[in-house]
């Protein structure tokens, strides 16, 4: 395996693949009970009523509105884009989401539907594409690279890759690193810019917090712009403790280098009150700076409607119902 050094690895004085792997293997462990207790404690924070609207709007701005189904069509993607841009037509002040997240062959439809509304998540709605034989990742590196390049060429702003969990679980961190590094290169557009890379660890398959911590560090060292919990296709998907752990890694990286890496919990966050707990975790672990589309995302589909219902309740003073938000 050829080692492609990264600036980040160099920064830690890690000049070979062996040294990168040795570094992540030597990371101190995580005590699961303590981590889960910390997450549970964060979940007890209650935010001010007056802050709730701002929190709900923040959640919307951080959503990667997602459709990742075998049955996806151009039409389905068009309605997803419409919803992303105008989540609640009855309340035009509702912010738009950060991104739409689709399969590679749907990227062109998303790009077309967005038109000039496409952007980087802040300037406009970003198009994120899963890639690398999502969700299992069980294919050859060539195909994964091709998958990635295709999505980038079709105009994806962001690539959500999956790591090789089999390699990680068998201790072959070399392969995990090298693949991420190769995909990161495949994200290059040739003009000095690159599609932002989110690295999906599929934490539900890594199973232990120690492995999740190692994979988080490895992904960052290999060039990830974001570390992401899950594909949404494996249970458990995002959990608060896992996200807290990944935020802690991102915090440690920031303290070490001054560089900010993003975190994306994805899958299983369906309710506003759950999402607010993630906001609390972000604020208390890495700080409010991270509540920015370039640094934090929710990978979700049904969360948006729940947030809209809560938002309507805040505005009208009475509880809303599912028929008052659009199905897609």
């Amino acid at each position: 395996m050829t080692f492609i050094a990264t600036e980040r690895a160099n920064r830690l004085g890690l000049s070979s693949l062996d040294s990168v792997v040795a570094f992540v293997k030597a990371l101190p462990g995580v005590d699961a009970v303590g981590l889960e207790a910390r997450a549970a404690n964060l979940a007890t924070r209650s935010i001010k009523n007056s802050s709730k609207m701002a929190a709900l709007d923040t959640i919307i701005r951080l959503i990667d509105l997602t459709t990742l189904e075998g049955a996806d069509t151009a039409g389905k993607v068009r309605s997803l884009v419409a919803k992303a841009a105008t989540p609640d037509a009855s309340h035009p002040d509702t912010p738009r989401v950060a991104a739409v997240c689709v399969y590679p062959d749907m990227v062109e439809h998303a790009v077309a539907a967005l038109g000039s509304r496409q952007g980087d998540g802040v300037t406009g709605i970003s198009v994120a594409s899963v890639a690398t034989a999502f969700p299992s990742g069980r294919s050859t590196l060539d195909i994964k690279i091709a998958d990635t390049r295709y999505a980038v060429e079709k105009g994806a702003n962001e690539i959500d890759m999956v790591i090789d969990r089999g390699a990680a679980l068998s201790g072959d961190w070399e392969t995990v690193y090298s693949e991420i590094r190769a995909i990161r290169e495949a994200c290059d557009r040739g003009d000095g810019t690159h599609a932002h890379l989110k690295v999906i660890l599929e934490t539900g398959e890594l199973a232990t917090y120690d492995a999740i911590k190692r994979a988080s560090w490895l992904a960052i060292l290999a060039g990830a712009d974001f570390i992401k919990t899950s594909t949404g296709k494996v249970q458990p998907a995002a959990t608060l403790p896992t996200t807290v752990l990944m935020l802690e890694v991102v915090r440690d990286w920031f303290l070490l280098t001054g560089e900010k890496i993003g975190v994306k919990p994805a899958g299983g966050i369906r309710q506003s009150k759950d999402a607010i707990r993630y906001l609390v975790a972000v604020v208390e672990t890495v700080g409010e700076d991270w509540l920015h589309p370039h640094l934090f995302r929710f990978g979700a589909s049904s969360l948006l409607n729940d947030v809209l219902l809560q938002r309507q309740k805040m505005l009208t003073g009475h509880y809303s119902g599912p028929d008052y938000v659009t199905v897609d």
Partner: protein
Amino acid sequence: MSHMSIPKTYKLFIGGKFPRSESGRVYDVHGPKGVFLANVAQASRKDARDAVVAARSAQSGWAGATAYNRGQVLYRIAEMLDGRTEQFVAEIRSVTGASDKVARAEVHAAVDMWVWYAGWADKYAQIAGNANPVSGPFFNLSVPEPTGVVVSVASQDTAYSLIGLVSAIAPAIVTGNTVVVIANEAAPLAALSFAEVVSTSDVPGGVINILTGSAAEIMPWLASHADVNALDLAAASGLSTVEWEKAAADTLTRIVRPRAAFTSLSVDRIDALVETKTIWHTKSLA
């Protein structure tokens, strides 16, 4: 041809050695009809202090020995004591005038007591400790541990000069305590011969320390000694212990009050000289 006997010098037993009292004092021990038997070292407060230092330095090692090993050592004491039965019978009789049968019964009871406690060494934790089913992801175990350095008073009743000593030592040391014991003042010969048994029984120096002399003189110093963890007065009935108990209270020293059946074989005796330690640890697959 007659053989001129060589009387034994009865000395203290501290840290595995047989020193004279640092004070140089001795006192006379007499038989039932007033016949002189021996000069016995009369321990001073400084001897008591030295004994506590010896007991303290031996304690962690003794507690750290395996329970199986402690049981072997206690059983070894029984063996050595049994082998010297005739000597102890004679000594007991010389001081108290007891019949051969009574003296022999006491020695046998003392041997049996060691055998009984020896067997507890690697079982006591199983009956005194347990897992605790706490409500949460925790492994939780309570185990008995020796309380540390125990000061005990052997029975001062001359009818119990050996068994009253053994019952003041065995329940303490079986779990890993070390002990400083005040022997029967009027009938100390068995105690001092018992020290010889101890010194030949693989008992690490300092685990058992035996002082002869006046409990009334020494005990205030031992009771108030901050480095003593427990005061075992189970066999001290007839002595005035209240002031000792008060002195011990100042450093929260554990106190076992005088009790009637101090020679009975009772787990209760072990219970009184242990601490319960409870250990929590997190449990998770993740």
